[in-house]
């Protein structure tokens, strides 16, 4: 059962990965990437890493994908003439992406149902499904890997500041080297 699900999910992830490369419209390409993330989360679950599967869904499908979709919507990339030219293909691409997402979600639901059926309540977890048990993982993360963990927090802070600096709007009338775009520094410069 698990092997069949693995190969189904592997085929789905490869198909979605190919969809990322070949889709004409950026939106469908990113939706295809969502399907690939879903099926990879299912594969992580099958390999015995439930925490990594949940992290994959939360961080990749929940945060990074939303960021991608947000930028695509924000930048208004849909050139109407281009969209009209690829109308038939775009429609099929949309169906393909929707089908991929639905297949990924269905596969996840099937895995969850199958695993909850297979393991009776109170049974000890087999080694196959406890490879990233939360207790040992947290202990290792906060003892042996404490320094990388803290460095990661500094990296996230630096990322936040960098994004703020990069994405702020340059005011049309402000000078280039001064306090452009920062309202609380307006008029401070000589």
């Amino acid at each position, binding site marked *: 059962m698990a092997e069949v699900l693995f190969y189904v999910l592997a085929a789905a992830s490869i198909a979605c990965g190919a969809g990322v490369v070949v889709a004409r419209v950026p939106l469908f390409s990113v939706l295809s990437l969502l399907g690939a993330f879903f099926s*990879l989360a299912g594969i992580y679950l099958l*390999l015995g890493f439930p925490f*990594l599967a949940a992290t994959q869904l939360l961080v990749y499908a929940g945060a990074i994908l939303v960021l991608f979709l947000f930028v695509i919507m924000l930048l208004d990339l849909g050139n109407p003439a281009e969209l009209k030219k690829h109308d038939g293909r775009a429609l099929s691409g949309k169906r393909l992406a929707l089908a991929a997402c639905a297949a990924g979600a269905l596969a996840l639901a099937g895995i969850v149902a199958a695993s909850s059926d297979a393991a009776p309540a109170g049974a000890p977890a087999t080694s196959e499904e406890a490879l990233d048990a939360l207790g040992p993982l947290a202990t290792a993360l906060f003892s042996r890997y404490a320094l990388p963990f803290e460095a990661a927090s500094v990296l996230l802070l630096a990322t936040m500041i960098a994004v703020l600096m990069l994405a702020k709007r340059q005011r049309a009338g402000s000078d280039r080297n001064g306090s452009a775009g920062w309202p609380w520094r307006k008029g401070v410069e000589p």
Partner: protein
Amino acid sequence: MKVPTEHVLCLAAILFGLGVLGFLVRRNVILVLASIELMLNAANLSFLAASRHWAGTPGGEPLQGPIFALFVILVAAAEAAVGLALVIALYRLRQTVDLDAANELQG
């Protein structure tokens, strides 16, 4: 019966190849970033496959794979945030996200 590790690594290799192909072929910056995400996912998959492969052996450290994958996910999130901010800056400068339009550094 377990899925053999070789098959998982083959899947990771195929996904990485698809990511490289998209990175080289696509001209849209957003889709280049998406291809990078696909490659990072393939790397994660091979980390987890190796961790699962060596989990039962005496000297194996089964937690190294998941922890590395966790850090890869974190770095991917940071990379996506900075990359998409760069896309917004490029769009503000050029009114396009075509990679061929960004040629200031080519001399």
